[in-house]
């Protein structure tokens, strides 16, 4: 257990997923992360289906559970004077706030960066919003789909002859959350060197613009927009199209042949001399004759089970993929041996395997802590009494008054 960030305290004033994912990346590395939620309903993500035990339940949303590991939860009504005063108390003891409110909302509560900076000059405020703190769209409303659209990613996904197809599972939150974590880490290095905080402005739209592989410079250099279908591998038999095996689908590439002609290597491996036909040699040729090529290749692939094919091809240094379902991923022997998942015990749901840090440090999974996502207000008592020094009596009063 490294606990790289165990000397950092972070307050998450966020709802939905982007800020939560950013804070989770830091919390999993040991940052003491306090998630501040409105009393009553809590974070909106608590109410997003599906719910792991079936019926709607604020502690059982899969999205909330996945993105809030190793955090503590308190409830606090920021729209009350007392709530604002209590938050300032937390700010005094914090290094970072991650917020995802609309631009101007914290200012309207008297909790804007300038005020918080006076309370704690070391404070880093990482604000993550759909369009950023400035610019003509800053008050526009958004969603994962709207971000994928405006960020220029959506137009490239899906079939050329159909409507654009969104990526599933809120990838805009993932990509913006990772960027926000990078910026926050940079600000922590700056803070440790100088004692000063700063206000970081993260735009989800801009994070999406950055995501597709170079569509901006493709246009500014070569003058063309990347066509839809190109990214989806349609008609690319040898480069990403899903191809049937006996028990599923695999994807092929022309990589890994060490400079040898890729089609020759595949012809040998699949025992398909037809693949050496010059018409399949270039990418353009393979696209032109894709149906014939697909039929040839799939004819052979149907003799294989996906994972057996994968191992045999990879041992020959060909590079292939197996289209795995989430169930297969959870059961993957490679991930098990690497210790990629963390098993967390949730009081309502029992032990589940959660994706870990995404890397090993000095040979071990570096995730510090073993908390599943907190129940709403689960840590009110310890944080308000131990960190802010409220008495039990004051806590009870504030709870009754709806502040906590």
């Amino acid at each position, binding site marked *: 257990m*490294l606990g790289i960030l165990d000397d950092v305290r972070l307050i998450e004033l966020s709802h939905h997923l982007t800020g939560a994912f950013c804070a989770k990346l830091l919390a999993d590395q040991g940052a003491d992360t306090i998630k501040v939620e409105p009393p009553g309903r809590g974070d909106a993500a608590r109410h997003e289906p599906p719910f792991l035990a079936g019926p709607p339940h604020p502690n059982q949303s899969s999205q909330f559970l996945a993105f809030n590991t190793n955090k503590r939860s308190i409830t606090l009504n920021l729209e009350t004077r007392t709530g604002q005063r209590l938050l300032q108390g937390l700010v005094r003891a914090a290094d970072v706030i991650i917020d995802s409110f609309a631009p101007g909302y914290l200012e309207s509560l008297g909790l804007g960066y300038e005020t918080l900076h006076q309370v704690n000059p070391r404070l880093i405020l990482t604000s993550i919003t759909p369009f950023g703190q400035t610019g003509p769209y800053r008050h526009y409303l*958004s969603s994962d789909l709207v971000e994928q659209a405006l960020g220029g990613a959506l137009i490239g996904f899906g079939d050329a002859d159909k409507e654009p*197809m969104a990526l599933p*599972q809120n990838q805009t939150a993932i990509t913006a959350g990772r960027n926000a974590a*990078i910026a926050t880490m940079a600000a922590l290095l700056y803070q440790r060197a100088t004692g000063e905080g*700063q206000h970081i402005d993260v735009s989800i739209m801009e994070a999406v613009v950055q995501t597709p592989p170079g569509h901006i410079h493709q246009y500014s250099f070569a003058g063309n927009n*990347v066509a839809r279908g190109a990214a989806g591998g349609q008609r690319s038999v040898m480069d990403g199209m899903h191809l049937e095996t006996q028990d599923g689908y695999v994807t092929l590439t022309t990589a890994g042949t060490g400079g040898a002609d890729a089609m020759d290597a595949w012809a040998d491996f699949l025992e398909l001399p037809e693949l050496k036909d010059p018409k399949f040699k270039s990418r353009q040729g393979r696209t032109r004759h894709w149906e014939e090529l697909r039929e040839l290749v799939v004819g052979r692939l149907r003799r294989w089970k996906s994972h057996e094919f994968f191992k045999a091809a990879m041992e020959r240094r060909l590079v292939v993929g197996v289209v795995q379902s989430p169930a297969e991923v959870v059961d993957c022997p490679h991930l098990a041996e690497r210790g990629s998942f963390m098993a967390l015990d949730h009081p309502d749901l029992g032990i589940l395997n959660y994706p870990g840090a995404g890397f090993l440090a000095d040979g071990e999974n570096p995730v510090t802590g073993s908390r599943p996502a907190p129940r709403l207000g689960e840590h009110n008592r310890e944080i308000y009494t131990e960190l802010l020094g409220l008495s039990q009596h004051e806590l009870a009063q504030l709870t009754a008054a709806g502040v906590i």
Partner: protein
Amino acid sequence: MKQTRLLEGIRILALEQVMVVPYATAILADMGAEVIRIEHPEHLDDRRSGPWPDNIPGEQWWNEGGTFAYWNRSKKSLCLDVYTPRGRELFLKLVLLSDIVVDNFRTGTMERLGLDHESLANIKPDIITLTCNAFGSTGPYRAYGSRARTIDSFCGLSSISGYEGGPALRASSNYMDHTGALNNAFLLLLAIYHKRKTGQGLRLDASMYETGIQSIGPALLEVQKGIVQERTGSAHPYWKAPYNVYPTQGTDQWIAISVSSDEEWARLKDAMGQPEWACDARLDTVPGRWEHRKELDRHLAEWTSHGDHVTQMHRLQQHRVPAGAVYSASELLQDPHLEQRGYLASIPPEEATNSGSRRYAGRAFADRPFHMPKVETRMRPAPDLGEHNQEVFRGLLGLSAQEIARLKQEGIVLDRPSANDLASPPQPGSGMGAAL
């Protein structure tokens, strides 16, 4: 406000290819780290990848590719063959002067070269190493290779991507490289933080497969409780309607509209001028709209098809309805919001200090999506091949001119592509968009 070159003084040796590590070190280079990209004199694939300025590879095409420039901006280039004993020896001398060594070779390559973490830590105990490949350095698949799109397959993202009722589709092109690269940048900053706190180095072992599974965490929890996510194209999988992309005037023009509350639905009706089909009490609740979502989508598609996507977006947003034009790159380059925020980056002509950047100065690149008032994060030109050979060999390692000349003769150091590469320049029009 004065901005700091935050990572000035940190030296990174980068044995890196394609994107998943180069893009990570580029982010650190923009923040002031000195990233020395070690390039093999005969493996110039990254410099062959285009796109080319005005679609034409120039006389020094190896310095001019847009994708190379994007993934390697703000770095230095040292052309050195670490597979030779003398090359390896020089590399190890540089390690003594460096903080971080990164690579994305297949598992086993750094060991074979004697450049694995343990070997480096023997001579530089506080060295930080990051290795990132498909499956990581441990586990049964550790020696296998990948492309970003095979990781899409492995991690589960592709299996849940696709149109409603249709087959799974490859989810993206390079998304797994992208998300893996962001993770790698985060890890390097974590390691720097760790070293400043403890004085200790760190061995980071990252895998694209694992950043992939992080990206679909909810689906992985769901399946452990028997919940299987259906493919729904752009539609919402559970409850929001209308929530989809709708055709607008023009060829391949679309608008995304997403309604998640009764208030937003009422405002959408206002924006449309209360058409008869929408004034239906069945549609006034979340469950009602979800039940009738196909019908809603049909009507809305008919309504959107009479206007253009950008005008409709602004009109809907003025009515406080979440809507976004489905932008292409050419539209992003003209978008007033991004322009006002100064989002897109380019190398200004006066900063085009080398052969490559003189050809692509002024051309737009996507930039970082965060603004930090106190940390400078400015893109500088990508290096010409071997541009920093002299600076590194003479300045850092103190080699004489004769010694450098001998290294050149022996083929250990170069500053031009090999004869083979020169004999087969890339084709006009080649590059990412064409290659995909």
